[in-house]
């Protein structure tokens, strides 16, 4: 197709990304690439202890160190608010969660390794680092609280004085009596204890922040590695530093991956912004990777007991779960909502289980705060459900795929009200199951298994379904559940006089390719070439408002806001066209970039209308304002519900416990797809993060709260050689409540992959009688499981 042909760039086309040229030639602008004139450098001194009182800080030598501009400690921040939490969860009996202050710099007590204690600002980063080493802090160590079960027993000094047993909240969802009744009449009950291992998000770009203050205008600017600059402006401006919006600009330029970890408002952002005024110069801070391990919010970290009740035909009757969720030492921005409203509400999965009850206890420990990481609550829920079903299938000696199929919510049951609050609008889980069985060549498995066996290897095949709830909404509902923010998105579509278009979106792209996908939507709807469309994001001074990117919401929520604005543009353009063409507005049709009087060949192009809007000579000035610029705020009616089914085959060497993922097939239903190339890329990336959780990654604290996995030497990141190429396919049931029919695809892989991989491993090890293995299923764990099983037999 000719490059100007809209068909080649519209919805559904695998358009190559427009952002790639700058990234491929080294011309991206990430926060650390920005340098402000006369800038200084900040280095944080962090606690080496998990739990300690600060007895004294002597910064004299540091202040005298070459190049040092200033040293600040917790004393300097005493009068400043702590970092706010964006979600207030109420537990049983409507008891509000314990919400302790999260000081910017430690206030008399450190609560995790990496808790910031002091900041040195110097001419160069090396000088700041040298000086930080000269700060003498006298600590009085306290016993560390690390294990959640032990933490809840209390005793010793709790993490926060306000929570004597370290309990943040004790929350429940579902009908307990109905669930217990379901268990009482069950023909079979399957039980499982499992751990959702703590992960470190590890976006490849470490966090960074530059604070700047303009004495002439009184305006602050913060450049930061954020997924949602407007949210940071609100949280930091209104809640921490008391800077009004009109005096605070937040810029999130190119951002090198987020996966949730760059949603939150972090102390360093407030420090550089505040300090820029104090020292009268810009202040820049860039995290080192080892700092990232002890200061970026971690993910997962649930310990769960879960049970499934089945009738004699294998129909699910009920499910009940008890989860301990680690909050870490302080409440990160969205931490309380992850194990509750993004986890408990997902426990129906893809199944018509009539009764579900869950209880979640959130616990403070002397570890890094835990918050959303790709999937956020939904991987934890999916892992519980899908491992449990697999175990049930094994116990009942039935095919795990067919047990799932038997219990799926069927296409004619939508909209479907689950027993855990959500209403699924649409889906077809049988279709994704059929698709994945084909994709993964279920028929040829016996042969592959035999071939593995002939090589002395154990082969296993695992299956898992998932459902995800994306685009968390509506604001009314989440507000009643404790959200302290709205969850809409905003977009302005500005048509310039010569017919080109700039979209200002509150969504933020940090790898998702919005500059391409959103431009495709505009190109498709306005019938203009993509080259005439620019997508602008990431700067609060350019974009009117926004809630940012998380929870796979950008296209479903942010994209819809763009569509709403485009609809307004088209409606206004029709009025202008009607006037120019001397026809009734109702007779104007808009197609392929042309406004035509129905049934005639009289028409005006989009460009002609745009020009008329700005040069309003022959123009309906009495009824229509000049200009062509529309803003919309879109608040979704419901979540969207992508779903899918995955199959994985593994081969295990029984002598060493080494697992090789031989194949991985993913069948997803993301609703309508705008750019299939980008969507597949999102699936691939999510899958590897999920496989990483299942096989390689885990964050380990020792009993003293020392972080054992503090660098890439100890924390195993998935590398190219650890994973296979993937087979991915899609089926489509279009979302019923947004105009694009889209659902979101960013987290699917990370949600569906862990149970798929573990189910495959347990299948491979089933001949030894192994029924469960914890993540990550390292060679050591697998080898040990084999040895233990062998020993138990003798």
């Amino acid at each position, binding site marked *: 197709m000719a490059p100007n042909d809209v068909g080649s760039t519209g919805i559904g086309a695998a358009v190559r990304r427009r952002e790639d040229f700058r990234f491929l030639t*080294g011309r991206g602008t990430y926060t650390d690439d920005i340098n402000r004139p006369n800038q200084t450098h900040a280095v944080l001194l962090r606690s080496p202890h998990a739990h300690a009182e600060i007895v004294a800080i002597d910064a004299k030598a540091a202040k005298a160190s070459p190049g040092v501009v200033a040293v600040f400690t917790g004393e300097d921040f005493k009068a400043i608010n702590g970092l706010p939490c964006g979600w207030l969860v109420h537990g049983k009996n409507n008891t509000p969660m314990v919400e302790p202050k999260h000081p910017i710099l430690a206030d008399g007590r450190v609560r995790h390794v990496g808790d910031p204690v002091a900041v040195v600002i110097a001419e160069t980063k090396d000088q700041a680092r040298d000086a930080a080493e000269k700060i003498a802090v006298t600590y009085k160590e306290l016993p560390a609280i690390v294990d959640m079960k032990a933490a809840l027993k209390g005793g010793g000094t709790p993490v926060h004085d306000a929570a004597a047993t370290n309990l943040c909240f004790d929350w429940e969802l579902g009908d307990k009596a109905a669930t217990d009744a379901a268990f009482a009449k069950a023909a079979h009950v399957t039980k499982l204890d499992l751990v959702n291992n703590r992960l470190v998000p590890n976006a490849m770009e470490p966090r960074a922040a530059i604070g700047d203050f303009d004495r002439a205008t009184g305006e602050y600017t913060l450049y930061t590695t954020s997924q949602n600059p407007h949210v940071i402006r609100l949280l930091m401006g209104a809640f921490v530093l008391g800077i009004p919006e009109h005096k605070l600009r937040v810029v999130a330029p190119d951002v090198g991956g987020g996966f949730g970890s760059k949603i939150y408002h972090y102390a360093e952002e407030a420090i550089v912004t505040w300090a820029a005024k104090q020292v009268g110069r810009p202040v820049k801070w860039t995290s080192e990777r080892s700092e990232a391990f002890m200061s970026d919010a971690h993910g997962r970290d649930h310990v769960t007991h879960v049970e499934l009740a089945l009738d004699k035909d294998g129909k699910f009757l009920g499910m009940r779960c008890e989860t301990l969720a680690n909050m870490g030492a302080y409440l990160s921005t969205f931490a309380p909502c992850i194990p509750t409203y993004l986890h408990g509400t997902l426990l129906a999965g893809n199944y018509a289980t009539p009764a579900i009850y869950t209880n979640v206890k959130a616990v403070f420990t002397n570890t890094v705060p835990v918050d959303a990481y790709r999937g956020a609550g939904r991987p934890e829920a999916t892992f519980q459900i899908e491992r449990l079903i697999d175990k049930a299938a094994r116990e009942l000696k039935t095919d795990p795929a067919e047990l799932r199929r038997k219990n799926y919510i069927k296409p004619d049951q939508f909209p479907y009200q689950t027993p855990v609050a959500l209403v699924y609008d649409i889906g077809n889980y049988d279709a994704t199951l059929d698709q994945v069985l084909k994709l993964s060549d279920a028929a040829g498995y016996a042969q592959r298994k035999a071939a593995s066996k002939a090589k002395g290897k154990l082969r296993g095949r695992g299956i898992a379904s998932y459902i995800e709830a994306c685009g968390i909404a509506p604001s009314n509902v989440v507000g009643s559940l404790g959200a302290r923010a709205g969850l809409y998105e905003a977009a302005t579509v500005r048509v310039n006089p010569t017919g080109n278009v700039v979209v200002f979106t509150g969504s933020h792209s940090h790898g998702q390719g919005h500059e391409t996908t959103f431009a495709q939507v505009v190109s498709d709807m306005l019938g203009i070439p993509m080259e005439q469309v620019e997508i602008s994001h990431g700067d609060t001074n350019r974009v009117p408002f926004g809630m940012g990117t998380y929870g796979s919401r950008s296209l479903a929520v942010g994209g819809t806001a763009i569509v709403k604005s485009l609809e307004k543009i088209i409606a206004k353009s029709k009025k202008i066209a009607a006037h120019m063409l001397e026809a009734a507005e109702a007779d104007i049709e808009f197609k392929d970039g042309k406004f035509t009087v129905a049934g005639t060949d009289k028409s005006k192009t989009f460009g002609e209308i745009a020009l008329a809007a700005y040069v309003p000579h022959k123009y309906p000035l009495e009824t229509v304002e000049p200009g062509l610029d529309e803003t919309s705020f879109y608040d979704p009616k419901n979540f969207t519900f992508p779903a899918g089914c995955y199959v994985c085959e593994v081969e295990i060497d029984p002598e060493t416990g080494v697992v090789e993922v031989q194949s991985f097939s993913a069948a997803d239903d993301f609703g309508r797809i705008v750019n299939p190339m980008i969507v597949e890329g999102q699936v691939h*990336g999510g899958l590897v993060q999920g496989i990483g959780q299942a096989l390689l990654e885990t964050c380990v604290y020792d009993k003293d709260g020392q972080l054992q996995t503090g660098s890439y030497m100890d924390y195993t990141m998935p590398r190219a050689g650890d994973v296979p190429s993937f087979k991915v396919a899609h089926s489509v049931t279009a979302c019923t409540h947004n105009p694009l029919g889209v659902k979101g695809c960013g987290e699917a892989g990370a949600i569906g992959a862990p149970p798929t991989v573990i189910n495959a491993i347990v299948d491979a090890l089933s001949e030894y009688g192994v029924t469960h293995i914890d993540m990550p299923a390292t060679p050591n764990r697998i080898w040990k499981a084999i040895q233990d099983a062998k020993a138990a037999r003798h």
Partner: protein
Amino acid sequence: MPTVNLTVNGKAVSANVESRTLLVNLLRENLALTGTHVGCDTSQCGACVVHVDGQSVKACTMLAVQADGAKVTTIEGLANGDTLHPMQEAFRDNHGLQCGFCTPGMVMSAVCLVKDRPNITEHEVREGLEGNICRCTGYHNIVQAVLAGAKAMGR
């Protein structure tokens, strides 16, 4: 402070650096070549890979003074004006990048890895990229890109 003289992307440059300055800092800070990234502090991630005398090197693992007299190519020096190098083009065409942060190091590593190996296998590419971490792409499309780039470079 020692002076280093080297050639970067075909241009002779000279800078005064502390003896502890890393090559990557010389490139990013003294020469404002910010395409080379820093993703870790343990020489594990490969975001900083450049070519030093034709070999791929982690620029965070070499002192600036060690590069005295060397010919260094960074990601900024790979394309020919606005014409992308075949490996860059292959990454674009195969969607081998998302956030772009690992990309400069990935591309520079890949160029060295496949040099004179147009028929390199998927397995060899996966093993050969051991020193480069990408958190976004799941490697699938990077591997496709490197295989396609290898073919294109062999032409």
